[in-house]
């Protein structure tokens, strides 16, 4: 028994390290369950079934660093004229009537020290789906990629883009 105690201890330590490591690595990308938005907005419905262009709502994407979240009036451009109301669109109307912004939960987030411009990437010919996944088929919208540095570098290497630290960090 004593003979195996050391081995068991070592195995236990390794197992704990693996489990902790697994959960840690999971935490670096968002999980589906983390998409808890104030309104059950569906990209599948808007971008998929209704074929709305990404840039119609995220209008900053090709002209500025930030893609931007649409303000409520962009939603209301269509929803104002819609007759059928569901409980979720009722919530939208409530925000509109109260003149309040919708407190969307931000999921596609980069650390503060990363300088990322949507404009540059769209100018270079990338599509939204290259990084954000097939949003048109998703009801909730978790991160499609890890958005971690290694992921960025691999893509920059593939495409011959700048591999200078000062491209993204300043």
């Amino acid at each position: 028994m004593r003979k195996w105690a050391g081995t068991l201890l070592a195995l236990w330590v390794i197992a704990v390290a693996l489990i902790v490591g697994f959960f840690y690595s999971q935490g670096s990308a968002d999980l589906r369950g983390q998409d808890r938005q104030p309104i059950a907005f569906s990209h599948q419905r808007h971008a998929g079934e209704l074929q709305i262009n990404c840039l119609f709502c995220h209008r900053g994407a090709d002209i500025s660093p930030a893609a931007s979240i649409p303000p409520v009036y962009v939603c209301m451009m269509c929803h104002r004229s819609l007759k059928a109301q569901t409980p979720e669109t009722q919530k939208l109307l409530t925000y509109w009537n109260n003149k309040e912004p919708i407190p969307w939960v931000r999921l596609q987030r980069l650390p503060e020290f990363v300088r990322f411009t949507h404009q540059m990437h769209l100018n270079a010919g990338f599509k939204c789906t290259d990084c954000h996944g097939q949003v048109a088929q998703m009801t909730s919208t978790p991160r499609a990629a890890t958005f971690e540095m290694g992921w960025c570098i691999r893509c920059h290497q593939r495409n011959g883009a700048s591999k200078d630290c000062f491209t993204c960090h300043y």
Partner: protein
Amino acid sequence: MVEYRDQNAPPGGPYRWGMVIDLDRCTGCEACVVACHAENNIRISGEEEASKGRAVNWIRIERYWEGEYPNAQVKFMPVLCQHCGSAPCEPVCPVYASYHTPDGLNAQVYNRCVGVRYCGNNCPYTVRYFNWFEPHWDEPLNEQLNPDVTVRSVGVMEKCTFCVQRIRGAQQTAQKEGRRVKDGEVTPACVQSCPTEALVFGDRNDPNSRVSRLSKDDRGFGLLEELGTEPSITYLKRIK
């Protein structure tokens, strides 16, 4: 669709950013210092910290006195990161936080820095500044932070970047239009604010830029260039 993807590899070869400082024009007004503070989110040191010698000025005006009162004469010398071509701070960084960009900038990557501060020791110009504490700005200065510049956290080294956010912005515009950055298209905050135009910024690889032409002036010298640091800044001073 743009012609080239690497911002630092524009048509006609890479850039090499440089500056010329005309000491004969400098009045020591410190407008550049203030402009730099505003542009680059430089933290407010406060009286207590400044008295300990921890004031942060990415560009500082050094004052040297010659002669005794009343025949004293004061000389000014703006000193900022010289963006050395062969920088002593670069090889000593254990994590490549201090390194050289392809367009000739001496870069400091804040999120990579672990704070061993060797670069600060090895810089002969003493232009590297350390974040001794978490930075803070008194109201309402915290409302005017530049969104294009990272706010440096506690424990990292920081220094002049030649306002890289402006350089990159101009490069992106130029890249979209498929051309090189034009001379005078980029001006760092200090250059922009200098009332006597003592500071000139531009691409040294472009032989026709103002910087290239001015740096060939026979008044020109590099600060401590005898150390072999190959500074990107040329000082101009008439020797009497």
